[in-house]
């Protein structure tokens, strides 16, 4: 198939061309390759980071909108424009006129148009009139609230930076940057498309997981250095929880790497294309473990014990304020977003269109279908995973520390080893690398007809679906007993109901 939007190649050629032309003017034309490399990477990093950071707005907006629906309320529909209402309720008025050189004029025209078309300005109601500049704010087709986070960010920027008197100042200042920088580094390893990534080392999966493990250190630093009981407890909880969930997650990823035969993220995705089946259908258990462990890693409900607001106020970031708090908040969502990308890459075939083989073989439509750039598929898949994250948050309460750890060590770890075994078996006996070949039609599951390669994912998926159904219906109807206890005064497992 191949991605026609070969951004990496274009940037590579462009920057080489540029550097050659430039360096030919200097006495060192031989160095043009290095300069070209520098330019290329700078541009790519800018593109990748910019792309992901900007689409984080989508994530935040999605979360608010989805939660609004799930919780049966409307999400906030104020927007960046709420900033335009000045002190004492006085509107800032047509602020765009103050922008020099008339650059604000298009904004003014747009606002005027929107007020005219979609506004509900009512002269009889001064309260409405007072905020008339955004009287169209609730109009659905404008994605109300999309820029709220930008507004929040601006607010954070203007806030005072406070350090508690007894805090360990150096570590206190370093911790947020440790967290955010290690998070940003992860993004550099994520390919958005076959030919669009900042860097693609051979062992990119290993490297990425290693970097993913740095942030907990920052969390612990932050918790310790704030010199506050809540932050300390949050930091320690975070350390314990992240350790407990890092291991099953790594083993789940190891399974993916084994079946793909590579530690390189691009090759993992290529394997899914070549084998003709997403890893989700080959390793459903691994996907589940990875998802659960990732929710715990990014500390979201139901695993948000480190920042449990009911007892630890805001956990390890209680003492932070202003933009440092904003950075931590952003880092949390960036990690979540990275987790979504990783899931999409590991289990959902990355940038490859779903059913590329089948749909792609339809004349006309198939050709057009395959022309959709991979970036779009990557984004869509990541967002779809994020929907699950938001959904979890709405549906479930928070688990207690000891229950989290127990679940991690006693359930997830054995299961992850089980799925490792499955992956090894599949690799050894089915997906032998000798059989691998790349075809435009989406791998040999489709080429080989109804052969082994098609049947294996079907069987695996079927088995797991049946297990899922069996587990889902095992409640005895009419049971009024109280079957379960989580008694904390005694060692787990020794307490029996009704004693």
């Amino acid at each position: 198939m191949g991605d026609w939007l070969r951004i990496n190649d274009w940037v590579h050629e462009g920057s080489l061309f540029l550097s050659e032309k430039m360096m030919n003017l200097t006495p060192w034309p031989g160095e043009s390759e290095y300069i070209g490399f520098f330019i290329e990477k700078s541009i790519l990093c800018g593109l990748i980071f910019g792309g992901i950071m900007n689409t984080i707005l989508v994530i935040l907006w999605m979360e608010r909108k989805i939660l609004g629906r799930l919780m049966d309320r409307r999400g906030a529909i104020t927007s960046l424009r709420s900033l335009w209402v000045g002190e004492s309720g006085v509107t800032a008025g047509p602020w765009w006129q103050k922008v020099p050189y008339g650059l604000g004029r298009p904004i003014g025209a747009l606002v005027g148009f929107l007020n005219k078309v979609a506004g509900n300005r009512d002269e009889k109601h001064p309260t409405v009139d007072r905020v008339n500049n955004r009287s169209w704010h609730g109009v659905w087709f404008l994605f109300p609230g999309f820029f709220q986070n930008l507004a929040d960010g601006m607010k954070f920027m203007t806030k005072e930076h406070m350090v508690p008197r007894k805090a360990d100042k150096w570590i206190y200042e370093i911790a947020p940057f440790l967290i955010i920088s290690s998070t940003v580094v992860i993004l550099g390893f994520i390919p958005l498309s076959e030919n669009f990534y900042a860097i693609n080392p051979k062992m990119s999966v290993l490297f990425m997981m290693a970097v993913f493990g740095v942030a907990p250190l920052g969390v612990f630093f932050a918790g310790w250095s704030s010199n506050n009981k809540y932050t300390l407890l949050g930091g320690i909880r975070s350390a314990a929880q992240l350790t407990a969930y890092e291991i099953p997650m790594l083993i789940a990823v190891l399974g993916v790497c084994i079946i793909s035969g590579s530690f390189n993220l691009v090759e993992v995705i290529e394997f899914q294309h070549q084998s003709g089946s997403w890893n989700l259908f080959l390793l459903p258990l691994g996907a589940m473990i990875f998802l659960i462990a990732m929710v715990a890693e990014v500390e979201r409900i139901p695993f948000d014990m480190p920042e449990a607001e009911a007892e630890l106020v805001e956990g390890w970031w209680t003492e932070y304020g202003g933009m440092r708090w904003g950075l931590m908040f952003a880092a949390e969502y960036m990690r979540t977003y990275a987790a979504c990308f990783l899931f999409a890459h590991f289990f959902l075939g990355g940038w490859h269109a779903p059913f590329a083989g089948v749909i792609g073989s339809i004349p006309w439509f198939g050709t057009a279908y395959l022309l959709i750039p991979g970036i779009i598929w990557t984004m869509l898949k990541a967002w779809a995973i994020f929907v699950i994250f938001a959904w979890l948050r709405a549906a479930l309460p928070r688990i207690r520390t000891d229950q989290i750890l127990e679940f991690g060590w006693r359930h997830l770890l054995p299961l992850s080893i089980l799925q490792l075994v499955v992956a090894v078996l599949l690799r050894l006996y089915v997906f032998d690398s000798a059989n691998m070949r790349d075809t435009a039609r989406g791998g040999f599951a489709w080429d080989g007809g109804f052969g082994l390669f098609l049947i294996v994912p079907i069987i695996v998926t079927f088995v797991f679906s049946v297990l899922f159904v069996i587990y889902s219906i095992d409640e005895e109807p009419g049971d009024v007993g109280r079957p379960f206890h989580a008694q904390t005064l005694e060692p787990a497992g020794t307490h029996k109901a009704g004693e």
Partner: protein
Amino acid sequence: MGPQHPMTHGLWTLRVKVDGETVVDTEPELGYIHRGVEKICESRDFTQIVPYCDRLCYASAMTWAHSYCYAVEDLLEVDVPERAEYVRLIAVEMQRIASHLMWLGAYTPDVGNLTVFVWCLRDREMFLDLMQELGGSRMHYNFPRPGGIKRDIPPGFANRARAKIALFLERMKEYEMLLDESTIFLVRTQGVGYAKAEEMVNAGVTGPNVRAAGVNYDVRWAHPYSVYDEVDWTSSVEKPSSVKGADCYDRYRVRMTEMEESCRMIIDALDKIPGGSDTTYQSGDEKIIAKVPSRAPEGATGHHHFEDSRGESMFYLQGGGEGRGKYPYRVSIRSPMFITIPFVAETMIGYKIADIPAIMGSFDPCIGETDR
């Protein structure tokens, strides 16, 4: 923890000594919003006290005003017209539902789920609206008067109440689906915060918290007042899960069933109300308010045990204050949560830090009435 802490549901401090994550010792500290209501009431006449009693608890204003009114009727020797008793019952039970919804809404964020909070406030709005129709305000209704009620149920009220209750009863199933059938909620609440019935009674804990431990004890039938013996209801009791007493889940269940019972009561009272639920009497009509003397003689006392949303509340009044008995000489308020909070603080010892909000929240603390 506190005075500004999400766990406190108000403004108080719980000093917690922890060993790692386990709670070793606790000590509550109250009084942050002590307003001196008892002293203020000594210089207000009997009608003027009613709005102050509303403000004892912002989540359950109606029941507190009624609690006061029953006591002052005991002091002034007044019999309340029957229709007024029915309207009072409807108002109080609506407030009980609203208060329990507020409790549920505050409790689920304690164990980490914000969804139910939003749902609860959504449904509480229906009952606040109904009570606004009665009292004219959204939270502090100033609805009952010594001797009766301020105004009769307005036209269309019965229709709306029936429609809203029908909807709410369906919504209860949704809550149960999201909480009772959610494993994580069960493991957070079951087996946590055991409290035995006899210990609770000895320590002064009453109301839903005792009924959760498997004892059907309710002031509404034990010391009957109003017309509770004429409407259809049973007091809600939960079977405790262990000999150790009731856990958080039991207390959650007992409040859920209590809300259902209150709905039943309201519907039944609307059917049985003398004069019919469609008629509206003028304010001051003798059918809804009795003649009340404005002065209480010296030496007269009045008290009344009342089933508040959180337990047994009581007012104790002495007549013969300033203005030749126009003001009460002494007003004393029994707040159920004032006694409960020290008990809960001891209950928490031995559990995890994460259980503190879960246990504290399950007893439904309200600091407005605690500190008075």
